[in-house]
């Protein structure tokens, strides 16, 4: 049998799972982001540090994200809209899941592509209709996967990646959010 390599270190992940089973403190992570208003409806968000495995951690380098709104919203469109960042998060999280599950199941991937569509009724955010919610009404993710596997095995990969996805959970299930003024 040829060895499957999707570039995911599954042994390390499975090892971490075993260790963290008995160490809930180490499993408690805090992800952080800091934002700053630029002008108009544009802002900049920077991310570098987080907390995990009981101590402060740092990404190799700082990432900077700009967010703005499109010109048809009478904005400057210098960057993507905040709600589009949710699609970024969902796509990358599910894709990481597909790769990890495939590695664990011995499935060689050749290509994994996804197209995402988030249906959004903007009457909610405009306050035009109080019955319309602010967020997405519906999100559709369509994967195209080329791999050494049957259709059923690929469907199972995609199902399992949703089952273990942080962003899928964060989007599909309610979360308590506290917003305060310092």
């Amino acid at each position: 049998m040829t060895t499957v390599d999707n570039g995911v270190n599954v042994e390390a992940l499975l090892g971490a799972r075993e260790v963290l089973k008995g160490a809930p403190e180490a499993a408690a992570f805090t992800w952080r982001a800091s934002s700053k208003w630029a002008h108009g409806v544009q802002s900049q968000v920077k991310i570098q540090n987080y907390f995990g495995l009981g101590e402060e951690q740092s990404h190799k380098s700082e990432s900077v994200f700009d967010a703005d709104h499109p010109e048809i919203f009478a904005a400057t469109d210098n960057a993507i809209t905040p709600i589009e960042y949710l699609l970024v998060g969902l796509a990358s999280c599910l894709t990481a899941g597909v790769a990890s599950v495939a590695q664990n199941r011995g499935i060689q991937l050749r290509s994994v592509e996804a197209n995402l569509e988030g249906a959004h009724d903007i009457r909610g955010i405009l306050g035009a209709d109080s019955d319309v919610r602010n967020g997405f009404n519906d999100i559709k993710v369509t994967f195209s996967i080329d791999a050494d596997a049957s259709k059923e095995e690929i469907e199972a990969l995609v199902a399992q990646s949703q089952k273990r996805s942080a962003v899928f959970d964060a989007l599909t299930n309610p979360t308590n959010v506290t917003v305060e003024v310092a």
Partner: protein
Amino acid sequence: MAASHFLSAASLDHVVLERGEVANSWRRERWESLRLLTPNWQSRLPGVSYDGPDPDGYMAAGEVAELIERFAKVARAPVRTSVNVTSVRRADGGYQVTTSDGDLASLAVVIASGACNRPTVPSLAGAVPGPVAQLTPFDYRDPSQLPDGGVLVVGASATGVQLAAEIQRSGRPVTLSVGEHVRLPRTYRGRDVLWWMDRAGVWDQRHDELDDLTRARKLPSPQLVGTPERLTLDLNALAGLGVELVGRLQMVRNGSALFSGGLRNVFSLADLKMNRLLEAFDEWAATTGAGAVTAAPERFAPTRVPPSPRWQIDLTSGEIRSIVWATGFRPDYGWLDVPVLDAKGQLRHEGGVVDSPGLYALGLPVLRRRRSTFICGIEDDAREVIGHLARTLGNG
């Protein structure tokens, strides 16, 4: 009593303590219409099996109680009823057992107090607005007990699907909150699906052979019901009855029930797992020649996803008048004063041998093999566990 059967065979002096009467759970803790989801021919206990006219039928709760009663007589089990065990603790070389009827000292104790002593109700039940009635399967007898109007059934395993169907048929519109579940057809290729589980060796899988034992032990009960018509009661059948399907109940906030938006994926997971199981049955049938005595392979329609499943219901609007928590059962070890429970309150044991000398367990899910979860699993489990006990006492 299965333990008693093998203890007697090994000439070990023992007593069976029961806080209620024989077959207590089947007399007091089941709803009116309940039938076993396992067929009659599988309802066998050591030395006692179904001998009626309908081996493929499903026993009503009262019939199960009768079977167990019959077993008690045949096994001549030394049962002391109405004796509640209030404490078991280690005491020089054995155990000190405190009961409502005095103390006992014993070299060994077999915990056979059941896996389903209490219904599990999630803590979010506390946030449900007062006017909405809440019932567990232990409170529930039949639909007439529920107020008229909408009913939210939370949980879509055996209990949830069975109650959802009968409540919907009573004219109360049911909304069923569906998390991860085990979908099974009642019959496959003309045979009871549990015939396949039994014969194809799925139920013989041993606890020490399973990839993920913790998961296997937590697996929800299958969506099955025992009816004379041998009907399949999957989510498509329930939707056909008019039951509305919504996602897993995640939170009650400001009087609104919020459901997961991941409903499609729990459908996919269950469909994929069912199909993998049916493929394994087909392979087994092809290699053993059992295919000759069964009908041709078949596949079932995928679970239909409602066009736009609701993710929130206002519980103050009067639409939902009652909630039935079909969210599982758990054991009660409040009386067990030996440190053998894990952080989640489950007994730590290796195939029924508990991590304390002379302490044993029977009747827990996947105790030694998948079959252990069901009545038909007790014979082999009890033989092996009591075998261990007898050897240990013999050497002692």
